[in-house]
C-alpha cells in the first residue's frame, strides 16, 4: 500500500508541527508514506469564494501529484471533502476519479482502512472535541446531531483509546465554530461571535485542550483564545494521537 501524504497549504506554512505529527503517526503504524513535493492547495479557498474556475490549476496540480498513490491521506476533513465533492469541475479522467475516490481524512483512514483503534498514545488532559463541519456533515466522520441515526464518531473512537485523556461533553455538540474560509473575513463580526460562543462552551465544560480534525477551525479559535488570553489550548487530533506524554 502506497500512501501519498497531503499537507494542506496553511498547515504546511503555519502549522508544520501538525504535518510532522501526521507523518510520524502514519510511519509508526508501518504505512509506506510519501510526501510529493510539488503539492500546494486543494483549491477550496477560491472555489468557496465563488471562483471555482480560478481553482482549476490547483485541482490539476493536486491530481498530478497524487494520481499514483493507492490512498491519499490528509490531516484535514475539509480539504478531503473538497477533493471528493467539488473536483467535478475538471475533466473526469481515470486519474481524477481515482484521486477523488481514494482521498481520506486521517482518522477515517486509520480507523476504516488500517482498521486500527489503539495507537498507543497518551495525553493526560481534559479534551473537548470540535467536530469540524466538513468532516462531520460532508465526509460523515460522525453522526450529526440533526439526524435521527445511531450515534457514532470516528474521532471519539480513536480518542477514547488514548491513555489519560478525559473527553468533555459540550452543550452544543456540533455547532460550527465560524471559520468558514473567506467567511472569517467577509463576515468577520458573526464569525468572531460564533468562535467566541464556541470557546465559552468549551470553557463552561472544563475543557483544557480543544482538538479537531481541521487546523483551520483551530486557527480561528486559537486566534480568539490568544487575543482574549483565555486558559485553553488547541491541538490537532494528529498531535494528540501521536503524543506519548
Amino acid at each position: 500500500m502506497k500512501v501519498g501524504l497531503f499537507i494542506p497549504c496553511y498547515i504546511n506554512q503555519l502549522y508544520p508541527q501538525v504535518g510532522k505529527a501526521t507523518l510520524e503517526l502514519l510511519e509508526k503504524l508501518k504505512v509506506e508514506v510519501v510526501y510529493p513535493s510539488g503539492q500546494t492547495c486543494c483549491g477550496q479557498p477560491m472555489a468557496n469564494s465563488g471562483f471555482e474556475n480560478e481553482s482549476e490549476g490547483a485541482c490539476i496540480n493536486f491530481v498530478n501529484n497524487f494520481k499514483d498513490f493507492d490512498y491519499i491521506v490528509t490531516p484535514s476533513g475539509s480539504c478531503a471533502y473538497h477533493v471528493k465533492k467539488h473536483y467535478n469541475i475538471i475533466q473526469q479522467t481515470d486519474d481524477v476519479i481515482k484521486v477523488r475516490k481514494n482521498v481520506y481524512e486521517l482518522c477515517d483512514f486509520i480507523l476504516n482502512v488500517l482498521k486500527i483503534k489503539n495507537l498507543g498514545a497518551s495525553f493526560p488532559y481534559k479534551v473537548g472535541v470540535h467536530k469540524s463541519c466538513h468532516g462531520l456533515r460532508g465526509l460523515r466522520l460522525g453522526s450529526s446531531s440533526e439526524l435521527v441515526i445511531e450515534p457514532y464518531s470516528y474521532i471519539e473512537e480513536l480518542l477514547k483509546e488514548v491513555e489519560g485523556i478525559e473527553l468533555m461533553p459540550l452543550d452544543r455538540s456540533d455547532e460550527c465554530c465560524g471559520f468558514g474560509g473567506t467567511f472569517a473575513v467577509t463576515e468577520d463580526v458573526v464569525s468572531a461571535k460564533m468562535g467566541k460562543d464556541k470557546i465559552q462552551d468549551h470553557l463552561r465544560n472544563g475543557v483544557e485542550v480543544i482538538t479537531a480534525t481541521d487546523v483551520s477551525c483551530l486557527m480561528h479559535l486559537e486566534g480568539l483564545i490568544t487575543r482574549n488570553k483565555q486558559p485553553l489550548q488547541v491541538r490537532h487530533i494528529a498531535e494528540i494521537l501521536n503524543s506519548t506524554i
Partner: protein
Amino acid sequence: MSHSKLAGIFNKDEKKVDWHDKALWFVRHKRDLSVHQVKGWEELRNLGHGIKAHTLSHLDVYLEQFEANALKNGVQVHWAANGDEHNQIVHSILKADNAKKVVKSKSMLTEECHLNPFLEANDIEVIDTDLGERIVQLAKEKPSHIVLPAIHKNKLEVDELFQEHLGTEPCDGDPQYLTGEARKHLREKFIHADAAITGVNFAIAENGGFVVCTNEGNADMGAHLAPIHIACMGVEKIIPKQEHLGVFLRLLARSATGQPITTYSSHFRKPGKGVKMHIVIVDNGRSKQLSRPDFRASLHCIRCGACMNTCPIYRRSGGHSYDATIPGPIGSILSPGKDLTKYSTLPFASTLCGSCSDVCPVKIDIHTQLYKWRQIIGKETPQPFIKKKSMAAMGKIFSKPSLYGKVGAVARWALRTLPKSLINAWPNIWGKTRDLPVGPKKSFDQWYKERENNKKTDQK
C-alpha cells in the same frame, strides 16, 4: 446593504444577540427531542423529499387537477403570474363586495407580493392576526422569521408597542396580560371583518381541498366569521393526495417548533352557506426557479423555519440582516433567483456547515445550493476589484509549486518578524478580533526535504 453590514449592526448589542441565539437554539433543541421520538424519521424525510420531487416534475398536471376539483367544490380559482397580478386579483375580489376590512392569517406569499401596502393604498384595512405578525405590523417592520415573525423583539419592547398602539397599561412585559389584550383587540377585528385572507400550507390535487396550519386558530377565526375567504398559495404548495398529509403534517410541526402537530391543522374544501371562497394560485418566479435544475429542490420547502433555528449565522445576525421576505438559509437560495445582484451577498452569509441540509424535513441540499449560487454570482455579478484580483493571484500561486513555496516563505517571515500592531492593522480584517499564528521558520515542506536529505546522507 450587504448581509455582513446588517449583521454588524445587529451585533452592536451583544446581549441581544445572545438572547436571540439562545431563544432559537431552544426551538432547535425542542425539535431534536421531538424528532428523536419518531421511529423512521429519516424515512419520513425521504418520503417528503420524494413526494415533492415527483409533484414538481408533474406540476402542470397536479395544478390543473386541483383547479378542476376546487371548481367542482364551488371555489373560485384565480391564477396570478406575479405579485402585481396577485394583488390586483385580491383587490378586485374585495372591491366586488365592497369589503373594506380584512383580517389576514400568516402567509409568507402575501409578504412576498407586498399585499398589505397595496391594499392599504386602496383604502382597505388589513390586520395581521397572527400575534407575532400583528406585533411586527404595529412596529411597521417585516417578519424576521417565517414561523416566529417577532422573535427579534423581547417582551419589554412588545409592552411599549402595545401601550402606544392598543392603549395597554405598562406591565413590565407580562406575557399573560399582553396576550390577553392582544386577544381582545383581535376579537374586535375578527367580528367586524368583511373578508379573511389565509395562506395555504398544502393544497390537495385529488380533491381540491387545502390545509392551513396555525397555532393560534386565527386562520379559522377569520375564515369562519367573514363572508369572504381568500386563500393565497404559491404553485409549489400542491401535493397529489390527501394521504400525503400524513407525511407532511408530521414533518412540519416537529421541524418548526418540536410540537407533534400544529394546534390547528384546518381542512377547507367547500364554502359554507353564504360564504364565497377564492383560491389565488401564484407563480411569481417559481416556474423560473423550477427551470434551474441545480436549484429546483428549493421549491420543496414547506416553510417550517428549521434551517433558520439551526443556522449559527442566522441566530447571530437576525432575520432582518437578510433583507429578504424569506430570511436564513432557505431564503439565501431562493432570493438570488429573484434578483441576483440585490441578494448577491446572501449565499456568502454561511460557513457551508451543512446543518441546514441535515435539519431540513424535505431534504433540500441547501448548503450545496449556496455553493452553486456563489459560483454564479462570481461569474455574473460585478465583483470587487480586490476580490477578483486576489482570487486570480491565488489561483496562479497554487498552480505553481515553486511560486507557492516563495510566497509562503515571505508570509511566514512577515508573521514571525513584524510587530503585532502592524500585522493586525488595516486591511487585515482577521486581526480585528483574532491573532494570527506566529510564522514558523521552516514550512513542513522544508522540514521534510531536510529530513529526506539527512536520511540519504546517513545511508551513505
